């Protein structure tokens, strides 16, 4: 586990790119008094008001209901897709649907299903199905082939699959699915920001009006919900939750099916084609869209992603000792766990939203949000990994232990996790544009605000292909570094 020169070189290259990006990035704090509101927010967090919000119970219930229904649907579809994952077309399809963020899916469905629960359920289920398909198929591939080999040839495919393959894979499938459930809760909460009746809805209202004690109450309850996930989401109770969840999605507004047809046959058809301006009109329309929106959007998305990626790495390296048994006693580790739970349970979108209000608009809030959240996730994984390392009794302590004993042993998995999250960071970077940073999401949101769904769809496609591209590069980097991490504990 000695640091290879390749991993050092790649690290140096990424740090250099990030430093170059810093020159291109807008990192200003524009508020005159950025700490005043932050102090008020912290005051709100320590004086949470659980009673002022009549909707707080509903908010949590809906958040849970959308998460359970969406993740369950995604998991079942993902499992079915995993069975046929060896087909290239299926793999491409899955890569495509997971490259589009939940919020973008929600924005699309909002245009024709409107505020029907289906909008929220599908927004979670579709991208999750793509992720589940990929990870499930990897888990199934990694199972021990021995049981299958000893079976008689007469055993049919289904039985051999169910009795020889599944039992070995099942624990991993369950671990991964329950991990995704936690992600689903975060996704569900964030969907509220576009108007679905989950936590984000109330968080946005309370925050924008400066009711910080309500914000505090909502966030604290959300942390408790996630921190105690293992206590209440017992495998045996899950079927019960899944069956009950659809009944707690709320009624929303009825679907008018004609809208669905209209969306696909008119709304997303590029306007020059709709108006009969032909191919030259289409070309003009596309080049205008590319130059004025897609290009600046892609540029800003890339700049922000690269800075956030390196900062995430830094945060991870600082954060993992918080929960590592090689440093400090149980009390300090306990506190460390609290800090990391907060960092990883708060969706980037929420952190970025809060910091934007406090510091004013620039890339800085987004970068900090991405680094805190993702650093919290990877820090947690690396910290756990460090606890599996046994050091010699006379190993050095403190900073030397960190630098000479642990870091060299942990650096490979660290890079693996970091590059694995590269694509996720980019997906989020694009989406943070909705909050007013000029990444691709900003232009998507602007197109939707102007009721130009044709433009919005093109820009969403651009975002998806950008993600697929980064994912491909990340896979090559990981292959080059011979990095492999167990899928089940990986934070996708």
């Amino acid at each position, binding site marked *: 586990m000695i640091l290879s020169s390749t991993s050092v070189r790649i690290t140096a290259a990424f740090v250099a790119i990030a430093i170059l990006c810093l020159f291109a990035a*807008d990192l200003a704090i*524009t*508020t*005159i*008094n950025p700490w005043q*509101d932050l102090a008020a927010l912290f005051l709100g967090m320590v004086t949470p008001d659980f009673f002022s919000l009549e909707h707080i119970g509903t908010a949590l219930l809906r958040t849970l209901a959308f998460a359970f229904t969406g993740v369950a649907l995604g998991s079942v579809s993902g499992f079915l897709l995993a069975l046929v994952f060896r087909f290239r077309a299926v793999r491409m399809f899955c890569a495509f649907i997971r490259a589009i963020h939940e919020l973008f899916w929600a924005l699309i469905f*909002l*245009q*024709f299903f*409107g*505020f029907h629960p289906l909008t929220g359920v599908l927004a979670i289920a579709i991208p999750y199905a793509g992720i589940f398909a990929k990870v499930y198929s990897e888990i199934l591939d990694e199972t021990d082939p021995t049981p299958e080999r000893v079976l008689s040839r007469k055993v049919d495919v289904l039985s051999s699959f169910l009795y020889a393959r599944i039992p070995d894979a099942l624990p991993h499938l369950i671990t991964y699915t329950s991990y995704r459930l936690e992600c689903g809760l975060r996704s569900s909460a964030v969907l509220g*920001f*576009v*108007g679905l009746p989950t936590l984000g*809805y109330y968080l*946005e*209202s309370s925050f*924008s*009006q*400066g009711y910080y004690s309500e914000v505090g109450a909502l966030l604290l309850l959300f942390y408790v919900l996630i921190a105690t996930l293992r206590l209440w989401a017992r495998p045996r109770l899950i079927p019960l939750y899944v069956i009950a969840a659809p009944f707690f999605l709320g*009624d929303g*507004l*009825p679907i*008018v099916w004609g*809208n669905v047809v209209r969306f696909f046959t008119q709304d997303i058809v590029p*306007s020059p084609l709709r108006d009969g301006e032909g191919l030259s009109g289409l070309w003009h329309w596309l080049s205008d869209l590319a130059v004025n929106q897609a290009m600046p959007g892609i540029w800003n998305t890339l700049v922000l992603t690269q800075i956030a990626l390196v900062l995430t790495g830094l945060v991870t390296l600082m954060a993992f000792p918080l929960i590592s048994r090689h440093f400090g006693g149980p009390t300090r580790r306990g506190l460390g766990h609290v800090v990391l739970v907060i960092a990883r349970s708060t969706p980037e979108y929420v952190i970025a939203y809060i910091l934007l209000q406090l510091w*004013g*608009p620039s890339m800085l809030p987004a970068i900090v949000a991405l680094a805190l959240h993702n650093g919290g996730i990877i820090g947690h994984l690396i910290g756990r990994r460090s606890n599996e390392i046994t050091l010699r009794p006379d190993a050095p302590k403190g900073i030397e232990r960190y630098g000479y004993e642990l870091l060299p042993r942990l650096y490979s998995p660290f890079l693996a996790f970091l590059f694995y999250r590269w694509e996720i960071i980019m997906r989020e970077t694009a989406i943070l544009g909705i909050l*007013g940073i000029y990444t691709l999401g900003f232009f998507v*949101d*602007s197109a*939707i*605000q*102007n*009721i*130009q769904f044709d433009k919005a769809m093109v820009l969403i496609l651009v975002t998806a292909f950008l993600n697929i591209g980064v994912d491909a590069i990340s896979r090559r980097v990981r292959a080059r570094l011979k990095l492999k991490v167990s899928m089940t504990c990986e934070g996708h």
Partner: protein
Amino acid sequence: MLKQIRRALLLSLALVAPVMADTFVFTAIPDNDETRLRERFQSVADYLSEQLDVDVRYVPVKSYAAAVSAFRNNQVQLAWFGGLSGVQARQLVPGSEAIAQGKEDTQFITYFIAHKSTGLEHSDTLPKAIRGMTFTFGSKGSTSGRLMPEYYIRQAFGEAPKDVFSRVGFSGNHSRTIRLVESGTYQVGAVNYAVWNSELDAGKINTDAVKVIWETPPYQDYQWTIRGDVNERFGEGFKDKVKQALLNMDDPELLKKFPRSAFIPASNSDYDSIRETAKQIGIID
């Protein structure tokens, strides 16, 4: 088996149908703090439900576009739109009609406001000194917070806002614009004058930190817009009943929540100039 399924389907339809048939749903653009919107429009829902003898439900939304989409998708049948969102909505829903507007909405104004650190004072023209400063609109789809201020900025400087200012933002709504300029996050902002005045009256604005530096000429703004097909769904003459009910809204408490002094009839053509402006800026095709 089939029979059972059919029965279950019919039963579920029967459970859903009354809600669909009887509830008249409306929404409003989220131009203000949500608590205030909820108070205001819940009162409107209660009032309309009493006047029209049907269940009336107010559905809050998170963006201007969501209000337009809900109207277009017939998930709401009536909406309190701004000038621009109304034009967008009526263009998308043939047969829909602007039926009532606030008395003030024929003479609506945008205030340009500035933080005290800019040293800007009230003036009769848009001060040239705002060039290079930071600037925030309200929502992207707002008439008073986006369309008209952008129009006048382009007129004064001959350039797009992003070229005039060092930074351009969209606060989301008017209350937030006031707060962002008040705190100095942005040096200059454009805000709906009615929201400004009502917050000023409520003592919510720190006038030492932020002041009005320019007022735009008047233009047409908010209106109630109704779908053309409501009569088929809610009975003959329903549209007129809604219109009459809106025009008769004279409870001072309710009017103050808007804030409007009274409601007067409106028509689609009142908003032709708004549409022209939006076309010039490229917000609508």
